[in-house]
C-alpha cells in the first residue's frame, strides 16, 4: 500500500491545485473527465478517501467526511456547447452558475439555477441537488438535467441520460447523480435544459402568500419570509400588470429575491406543500433568526444562531410524521445529525453506493445511513 501511495502521490503532484485553500494531504485539479477517472481509479486502488470541491459554498452539507484527497473542479471550467435554438447547454462542472446564467442571458435564456447561491458551481449545485425559488413554476433542477458524465468511484467515465430535451432511453442516471453529493463519483459535464426568460416580471409584496398563490395562475414563486411575503409574477407585460392589480399589492418590476441565509446553523424543513405554515411555526419554535418558506413547494429554510438539540429532535419528529424531513445543511461543526431517519429504501441505496463506489472512497458518510 505504501508503494501504491507513493506512485499515486507522483500522479497527483502533476495536477496539484494551489488555488483552493483546504486542508488535505493532496489537492488536485484534473483538467478532463478522463484524468478525473484516473485519479479516482488510483485513489480506489490505494484506498485513499476522497472529497470533491467546487465553489466551496456548500462544503459541510451532509454527513461529515474525512478525506486525504480533495479533487477540485477548478480546471473543468468550460461552457462546452450552448445551443440557444435548442434551449440546451453543455457545461463542465467547475463553471460558476453566475457565469453560466450571465452568458446565456445574452439570448434572454436561463438555466433556472438557484438565484442566490453566489459562488456555487454547476457541479456543486447538481451534486447537492439544489433548486432555486422558481422551482414552483419550472420544476426542480433535476428535471432539467438531461445528461451527466461522471467519473465513478471505480475509475470509469460514465455518461447517463440523453443530450436532448426528451428521452425514455435507458435508466435515469442523471436523476440518480443529482443530489448524490459526490458519493458515487465526481460530476464532470452536464447538459441542461434551458428556459427562455419571461417577457416581463414583477415582485409583489402581499399579506398572505398561500392565499395569493391560490388566486394566481402559476406564478414563479410564492415566498413567505421573516421579512414579508412576496409573489413573483412572469409573463407578457399586460398579464403581469393585470395579475399584480388583482393581488392588490404594489408591484416592483423585476425579481427581487431574499438574500441568502447566512446564520451559522441552517436547517431545511422539507414537507408536503399543505404543511408549509406548520413548518414555519416549527422554525420559529427553534428560534430561527431568519426563514424563507416556499409555498406550493414545501421547503422552509431557516437560519439559527444557536440550537437546542431537543427542540430540533421534536421538529424533526414532526416533519417525519408528515412524510417530510428536517435536514441540517450547516451546523457550525457541532455535529448535528444532518438527515434524520434513513429512507425505507436504505438497503437498495446502499447497494447503489457500493455499485458506483466499491472501495468506499467517495465522500464516505455524506449520505443518509452513513453511506
Amino acid at each position: 500500500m505504501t508503494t501504491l501511495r507513493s506512485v499515486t502521490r507522483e500522479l497527483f503532484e502533476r495536477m496539484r491545485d494551489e488555488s483552493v485553500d483546504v486542508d488535505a494531504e493532496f489537492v488536485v485539479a484534473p483538467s478532463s473527465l478522463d484524468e478525473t477517472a484516473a485519479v479516482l481509479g488510483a485513489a480506489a486502488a490505494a484506498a485513499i478517501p476522497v472529497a470533491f470541491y467546487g465553489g466551496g459554498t456548500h462544503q459541510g452539507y451532509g454527513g461529515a467526511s474525512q478525506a486525504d484527497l480533495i479533487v477540485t473542479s477548478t480546471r473543468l471550467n468550460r461552457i462546452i456547447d450552448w445551443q440557444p435554438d435548442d434551449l440546451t447547454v453543455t457545461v463542465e462542472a467547475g463553471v460558476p452558475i453566475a457565469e453560466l446564467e450571465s452568458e446565456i442571458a445574452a439570448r434572454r435564456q436561463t438555466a433556472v439555477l438557484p438565484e442566490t447561491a453566489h459562488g456555487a458551481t454547476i457541479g456543486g449545485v447538481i451534486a447537492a441537488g439544489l433548486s432555486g425559488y422558481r422551482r414552483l413554476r419550472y420544476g426542480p433542477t433535476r428535471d432539467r438535467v438531461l445528461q451527466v458524465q461522471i467519473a465513478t468511484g471505480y475509475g470509469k467515465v460514465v455518461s447517463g441520460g440523453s443530450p436532448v430535451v426528451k428521452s425514455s432511453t435507458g435508466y435515469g442516471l442523471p436523476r440518480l447523480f443529482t443530489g448524490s453529493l459526490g458519493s458515487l463519483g465526481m460530476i464532470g459535464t452536464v447538459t441542461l435544459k434551458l428556459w427562455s426568460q419571461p417577457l416581463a416580471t414583477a415582485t409583489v409584496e402581499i399579506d398572505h402568500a398561500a392565499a395569493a398563490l391560490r388566486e394566481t395562475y402559476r406564478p414563479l414563486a410564492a415566498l413567505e419570509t421573516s421579512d414579508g411575503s412576496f409573489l413573483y409574477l412572469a409573463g407578457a407585460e399586460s398579464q403581469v400588470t393585470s395579475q399584480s392589480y388583482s393581488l392588490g399589492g404594489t408591484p416592483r418590476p423585476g425579481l427581487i429575491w431574499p438574500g441568502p441565509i447566512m446564520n451559522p446553523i441552517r436547517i431545511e424543513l422539507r414537507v408536503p406543500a399543505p404543511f408549509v405554515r406548520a413548518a414555519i411555526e416549527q422554525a420559529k419554535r427553534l428560534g430561527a433568526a431568519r426563514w424563507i418558506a416556499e409555498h406550493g413547494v414545501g421547503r422552509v429554510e431557516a437560519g439559527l444562531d444557536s440550537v437546542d438539540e431537543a427542540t430540533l429532535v421534536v421538529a424533526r419528529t414532526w416533519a417525519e410524521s408528515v412524510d417530510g424531513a428536517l435536514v441540517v445543511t450547516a451546523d457550525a461543526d457541532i455535529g448535528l445529525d444532518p438527515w434524520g431517519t434513513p429512507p425505507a429504501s436504505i438497503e437498495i441505496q446502499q447497494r447503489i453506493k457500493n455499485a458506483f463506489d466499491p472501495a468506499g472512497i467517495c465522500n464516505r458518510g455524506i449520505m443518509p445511513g452513513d453511506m
Partner: protein
Amino acid sequence: MHTHPIDRVIYAKDSSISSGDPEIVVLPETTAEVAAVMRIATAEGMPVVARGAGTGLAGGAVPPPGSMLVVLTRMNEIVEVDEIGQSAWVGPGLINLDLSAALEDRGLHFAPDPASQQSSTIGGNVGTNAGGPHCLAEGSTIAHILGVEIVTANGDVMVLGGAAPDLPGYDLRGLIVGSEGTLGIVTRVLVRLTENPPDDVTMLISFVDIADAARAVSGIISSGLVPAALEMMDGPMIEAVENFVHAGLPVGSGAVLLAEVVGHPNGIATEAELIREIAGSNNASEIRTASDTDERALLWKGRKSAFGAVAQAAPDYYLNDTVVPRTRFVEVLNEIYAIADRYDLRLLNVFHAGDGNFHPLVSYDASESGMTDKVVAASHEMVQAAISAGGTLSGEHGIGIEKHHLMPLVFSADDLDAQARVREAFDPSDLLNPGKVLPEGSRCFDRPTT
C-alpha cells in the same frame, strides 16, 4: 390466476410487433397480493413481467416463455386527492384519461397525455416515462411523479419519494420512472397534478412545404415562447387522418402545425399573435384559430387519431420514436424521407415538433414476404440518422425488447455497465422483466474475459 391457453394468448402481446408466452397470468387487486406473488416467483426463480393496458410500443410488457405476467388493471382506484398540495395517490391500473376526467371539477389534471391516454394506465406511463403533446411545456411523466410504492424483487413493499421536496437519499423514484418494470413493480403512484389553465388558444397552421413548417417550429422555439403544445403532421398523414375522422384538415398541404398556448388570457393573446407572425413569415398558407371548445376538440381529435387512421389504411405499421436536437429537424427529416424512398416504403409522419420528437411511421402489410425485415432495416437507418444528428433512441415509448439491441448506438460499454449496476442493485437475481431495456452482456463482468 389464469393459465388457460386462451388467456395466455390474450396477454402474450402488447401494441408492439413482438409477442411472448406467459406461463401464468395474475390479476392482483392489492399491493399485498402483488408482494405475495412476487415472493412465490422469487422462490421459484420465475421471471416476472408487469403489465398495464398493453398499449406499449416497444415490447416492454411482452412476457418471455415461462414467466409470470402481473396485470395491474384491477388496481385502478384513486386512493386520495390532495387538492391544496395538488397531488393524488392512485393505483397503477388507473387509466390516464380517467384521472384527469375525475379531477375536472376541482380544476386539476394529470399533464402527461400520450396518444394512448384513453386506454393506457398511469403505471404504464410511469414504466415508459410516457410523453405526449403537452409534455413540451410540462415535461414528460417523470416531472409529474412525486412518489411510488413498489414491490421489490424479493417481495418487500416500500415508498420511494413523496410529496415533500428533495427527501434525503438517492432519487430512486427518478430511477423507477422509465425503468419499464425492471427495477420493481409499481403498486401505487403519487402523481403531481397541474392546474387547468384559465384560457387557451389553439391554432391549425398549414404549409405547402414541410421545410417551412419545420422552420416555423424553430422560429417559435427560439423566439422564447414555450407553447403548451406544438405538433406537426406531414402531407401523407394529413390525408390518412382526414379520411378517418373528417376533422376538416387541409388535404393537399405539405404539413400542418397544431399550436396551442395556454394561461392567463392577456398573456396568451400576445403569444398567439407572435406565433401567427412567425408562421406568416415562414410562408404559412392558412392559419385557423379554434373559435370554441368544440372546434378545439376537433382539431385535437385529428392529431390524436393519427395511429388509428394509419391502422385503417394498412394492416400493419411500425413506429419509431427518436428525438433530435430541434436545430437539426429539417436535415433529419429529409434523410428519413430519402430512406423511405430508397426502400420503397409508405411513410407517414407525426411529430412532437416542439420537442424534436419524431414518429416516422411505416405502414405496410406484414403478410408480404420479407416485408417486416425490410421495414425493420429501414427503421434502423432512420434511428441511425437521428442519432448521428445528436439525437437519441426513444423520446417517450421506451426501449423494451424492440430497441435494446440499439442501445450501444447511444451508450458506451461503460455507460451500459453503469446502468446494469443500477439494475443489479434493485434486482440481483434478474427476475424483473429480464431481457428488456439493456442488451445482453451489459454488465461488464458478464462478458467473456479471455
